[in-house]
């Protein structure tokens, strides 16, 4: 069965989510991945939004995190400080998995969503951190969505908006951050992870039909590709639930 790149990315992200996880998500594909996980492989996960809404009913996909659909049938509606405290809290924070995106990422999973060029005289100014810096600082596991392009996988970030593993092995510990950090990067070509000890990015999987060379060509820095295997495409069951139950109007999935 045919599937789109967006469907593949959503399903690969959903598979990272486990029962018992508290899933922090924003608008768009991250919300869809969380919904897919809840309907497919992690029915006991809890979806939670930056707005503070926890466990919303989500009969329809909201187009923004403060849409009234996010409050509808929620177990709890909070404020912004509560939402971030859920991640900073020593008890709940351990269970949170975050979903992020960025304009640039480096080999240690640090990300930039602020500027291209000099901060004080930028070539391109983006919208800014939003809550990404906080999520990246607090949560033990995060998923990062990226488009696989050379200008996005860079040797040096123009601005470090949200901390990943910082400078490697003990980077987070030395800075005073909670343990954990970025766990997996999901792109339109591949899945990347980080070595346990060095915290350097490596190629964990490539999508069916994508060559390892092509993945490397689209990155400024080299990564270890020796452990890479083909990523299992979405199953019929996964696709069916994603298309029919999670986003029947294809608001996030887009055209086939």
């Amino acid at each position, binding site marked *: 069965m045919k599937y789109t790149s967006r469907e593949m990315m959503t399903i690969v992200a959903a598979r990272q989510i486990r029962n018992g996880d508290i899933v922090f998500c924003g608008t768009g594909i991250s919300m869809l991945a969380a919904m897919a996980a809840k309907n497919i492989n992690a029915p006991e996960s809890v979806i939670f939004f930056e*707005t503070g809404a926890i466990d919303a009913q989500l009969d329809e996909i909201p187009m923004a995190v403060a849409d009234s659909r996010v409050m509808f049938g929620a177990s709890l509606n*909070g404020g912004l400080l509560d939402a971030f405290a859920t991640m900073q809290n020593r008890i709940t924070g351990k269970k949170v998995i975050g979903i992020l995106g960025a304009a640039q990422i480096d080999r240690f999973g640090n990300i930039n969503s602020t500027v291209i060029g000099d901060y004080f005289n930028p070539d391109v100014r983006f919208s800014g951190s939003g809550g*990404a810096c906080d999520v990246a600082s607090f949560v033990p596991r995060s998923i990062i969505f990226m488009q696989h392009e050379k200008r996005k996988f860079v040797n040096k970030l123009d601005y470090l908006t949200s901390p990943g593993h910082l400078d490697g092995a003990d980077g987070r510990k030395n800075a005073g951050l909670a343990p954990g950090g970025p766990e997996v990067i999901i792109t339109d070509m591949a899945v990347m992870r980080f070595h346990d000890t060095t915290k350097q990015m490596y190629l964990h999987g490539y999508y069916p039909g994508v060559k390892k060379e092509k993945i490397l060509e689209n990155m400024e820095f080299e990564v270890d590709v020796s452990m890479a295997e083909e990523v299992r495409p979405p199953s019929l069951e996964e696709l069916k639930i994603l298309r029919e139950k999670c986003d029947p109007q294809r608001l996030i999935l887009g055209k086939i």
Partner: protein
Amino acid sequence: MDYNTAPDNAAPEENAPTNTASTERTSNSIASGSIVSVNSASSDNSESTDKLMSLTDAIDKFVQDGASVAMCTCYESLIPFAAGHEIIRQKKKNLTLICPISDILFDQIIGAGCVSKVRAAWVGNVITGSGYNFRRAVEKGSISVEDHSNFTISLALKAGSMGIPFMPSRTALGSDLFKTNSGIKKFNCPITDDRLTAVKAINPDVTIVHLQRSDRHGNAHMWGNTGITKEAALSAENIILTVEEIVPTRVIKSDPGRVLFPGFRVSAVVHVPFGGHPSPVPGFYNRDHDFFLEYREDSKTVSVYRNWLEKWIYSVKDRDQYCNLLGKNRIDSLKLLKSVKSETVEYGY
């Protein structure tokens, strides 16, 4: 506007059930949902605390050139668009805008030339990405930005509301926020010696919020996600409150759990039905997604944005005219489709 006429002809009976004000809307405004009732309860007829005024007067009186203004305090909902448009109409200058995530309202005010500085975590168009006026202004150097994360700006307002110089956190350590924001510093915790982040307090000159309903004295109900509204309001010198409905004090007092800040802190109460459009107002109307998609095109260049300003702001006297411009069909299309009421609770003794 409605508030000039409605108190005389639309006051609900004082003994009417509590929910009358929100269920029986008989306004002649195109935006509906705009009944205004007077303060007929004996306990709330104090003239001295009556803060009801026009939007024009509220902005004129409490937003001075050069002021720091917090608005857009609960993400993409309940954004005080009508108040922001009045700021543009009055051609305020050198404002500092403060919020965690502004949807397109900051972009609009920046594009109108009213702003010299932004203290925020995210400025753009939430469902499409970039805010083009913001981008142009920063890339040209015509405004300065104090970058925050959502949590740091929230902590700054929390500290401001509590009357302390900073709030501690474990966020942002290792990030470049420390290099570009002088109000964010590292320190060692005096209790545990852990490395922590200190976020300097922010106290805006004025915080502008759009909520569901209020009495004439500024006692207001809010429901839905509250964002950082409470802290932004309590940290400010003045609070301007714009609301969908004015209700008798007893409606507010029947459910004090929904009140975020005391009425005595509020400087101005303004009745502005549909004042949050195109953002959603829980209990009143849905988000006008198309408006945000259209705005993306309408703000792409300086010249098309000039046309947008002329059409939606300069040629429009007030919110009623704005609603006429939107048209009845569009307003009707944003009505709630599913009604779900909360159960009332017992507050007796």
